[in-house]
């Protein structure tokens, strides 16, 4: 095992898949000469050249739309949206075209494309640049929505996403790029649409993903000091949503807290909680709790912004309420 950052893990996945398949190419704003806004594609332009690392205009609909078209010709584009907040400018192409074409045209082709993008708040970027609208995209059948929380998962899932014949929205979190984790040496992939138990426990099930995995770990560590063992299930993919590990865990703990960075209303927590009630109602010992962002656009001011985002104490508090 090697200990590398999330940035390095994602970069390795891209590099390996570019080496592995000449039909894989990257396109997006500042992915080439600049080396990627978050330096994920640093060095790619010099190695792979301008043909395979394509700098685009600031034109999100053109980026995603042309990636769809290129995918229809059999290529495997990795289209980068600088942040998920800019995905709204390409919303039509993501949800109306990429997600629907295969079905609507009777399965005549595949759409092997990845949209890599970055979400999350906490960096004082203000309301337009700090969103976590993952649930919005997970609403649409036909899309695969992945959002990893560890370097190991990021690398393995991204490699699977690039090899997948379906359109994958791959959502990274900017505050996780420096986080380090163990990553297996050599070639490996992780299947899309599979949740994973990241921390075993017996007293309460915490369901989470992406940045909130880090928050949930910290909460679990503190809870452990008072003898409460939380089991953390990392969804990793929001669509397809693999509830099996969640349900199995819940049947053991009978209590659940769902932690997400996005807003609570109509969110990931709403979906997971409902599925718990639908599939394990007889095992419920306490109402499922949701920890999520306050229902406000994220403010710039640091104190206000942190008040709006889910914190470790919020998770601990929620766990204590369900116990």
């Amino acid at each position, binding site marked *: 095992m090697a200990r590398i950052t999330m940035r390095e893990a994602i970069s390795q996945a891209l590099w390996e898949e570019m080496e592995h398949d000449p039909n894989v190419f990257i396109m997006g704003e500042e992915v080439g000469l600049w080396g990627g806004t978050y330096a994920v594609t640093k060095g790619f332009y010099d190695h792979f050249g301008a043909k395979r690392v394509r700098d685009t205009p600031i034109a999100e609909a053109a980026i995603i739309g042309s990636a769809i078209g290129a995918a229809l010709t059999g290529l495997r584009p990795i289209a980068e949206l600088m942040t998920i907040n800019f995905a709204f400018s390409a919303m039509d192409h993501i949800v*109306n075209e990429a997600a629907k074409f295969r079905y609507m045209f009777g399965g005549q082709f595949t759409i092997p494309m990845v949209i890599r993008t970055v979400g999350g708040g906490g960096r004082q970027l203000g309301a337009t640049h700090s969103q976590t609208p993952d649930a919005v995209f997970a609403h649409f059948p036909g899309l695969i929505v992945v959002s990893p929380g560890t370097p190991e998962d990021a690398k393995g899932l991204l490699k699977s996403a690039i090899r997948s014949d379906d359109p994958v929205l791959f959502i990274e979190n900017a505050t996780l790029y420096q986080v380090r984790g163990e990553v297996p040496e050599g070639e490996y992939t992780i299947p*899309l649409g599979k949740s994973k138990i990241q921390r075993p426990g017996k007293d309460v099930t915490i369901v989470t993903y992406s940045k909130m995995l880090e928050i949930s770990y910290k909460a679990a560590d503190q809870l452990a000091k008072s003898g409460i063992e939380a089991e953390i299930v990392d969804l990793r993919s929001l669509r397809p949503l693999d509830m099996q590990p969640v349900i199995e865990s819940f049947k053991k703990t009978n209590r659940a807290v769902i932690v997400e960075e996005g807003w609570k209303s109509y969110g990931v927590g709403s979906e997971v909680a409902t599925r718990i009630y639908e599939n394990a109602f007889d095992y419920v010992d306490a109402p499922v709790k949701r920890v999520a962002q306050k229902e406000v656009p994220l403010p710039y001011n640091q104190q206000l912004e942190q008040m709006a985002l889910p914190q470790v104490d919020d998770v601990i508090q929620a766990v204590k309420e369900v116990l």
Partner: protein
Amino acid sequence: MEKQEYLDLYYQMVLIRLVEERAAQLYQQGKIGGFLHLYIGQEAVSTGLISVRKPQDRIITAYRDHGAALNCGIPAKEVMAELLGKATGCSKGKGGSMHMLDVEKNFWGGHAIVGAHLPIAAGLALGDLYQENDSVTICMFGDGATNIGYFHEALNLSKIWNLPILWVCENNQYGMGTAVEKASAVSEIRQKAEGYGIPNRRVDGMNVLEVRKNAGEVIDKIRSGEGPFFLEIITYRFRGHSMGDPERYRQADEIKKWQENDPIGILRNVLIGEKIVTEAELDVIDAQVEDEVQAAVQFAESSPDPEPEALFENVYAGEYTDG
């Protein structure tokens, strides 16, 4: 041009006309659901364009797509079956009038979000450029599509990447019920291409031979690596925007004036006047098309609906479990 080529142009235009006249009847009988946008009056545009494409050239258009579908070689019976939502339709009954597509015929749809297929068309051309094919993508759209952002993003991208694409604006004078001069800052649409440095022409779209001649010339330029070209083709739809259009936005005498310029009549007069064919030969084609369309309707009406299992087919290419 060989005599058979003239006859084929005539055949295709009559085929489109009759398929759509029958479709209008079937719509009024309630056998076709949803929206039905007829191409009647515009037949010379797609017929002329597609008559000069090579098999490797890709065709993509908007929702008024029956004409292009037939020109690309989708059999009338499969077009009719799609209109009736049958399993034997070109999109297996899942697309309908606005979403016809056939990969085998290199016909890439059939797109119902105005302008959204332009970036996708750019991507098709990007795919061919990347793979160093000598294919050209021919992308058709209406005058209304030139006012939406996608148009501008796609034209810009095509120029900066020197994509092998022919942009074809079918200027039929109205975007739904809004006249060009009310919706577009310039009523001569080709000026917009000028703004992106894309060479362009304005062509009479009621004369299939004019369309064919111009398309042939500019497709050769594109194939030789000169980059995108833009054709504004002046045409007129004789029917409403879709079935059930009250047509308050135009006067009957305007329609009458254009109908005197019927593209089928114009070709007929040229062919007979220049003694290329006899009237009797054209009458034979008329009769053949009558039979073909009748057979297509029978095929469509006797075809099965999609099986219930088809409901869940082709949402994804891969196998996933959600639940």
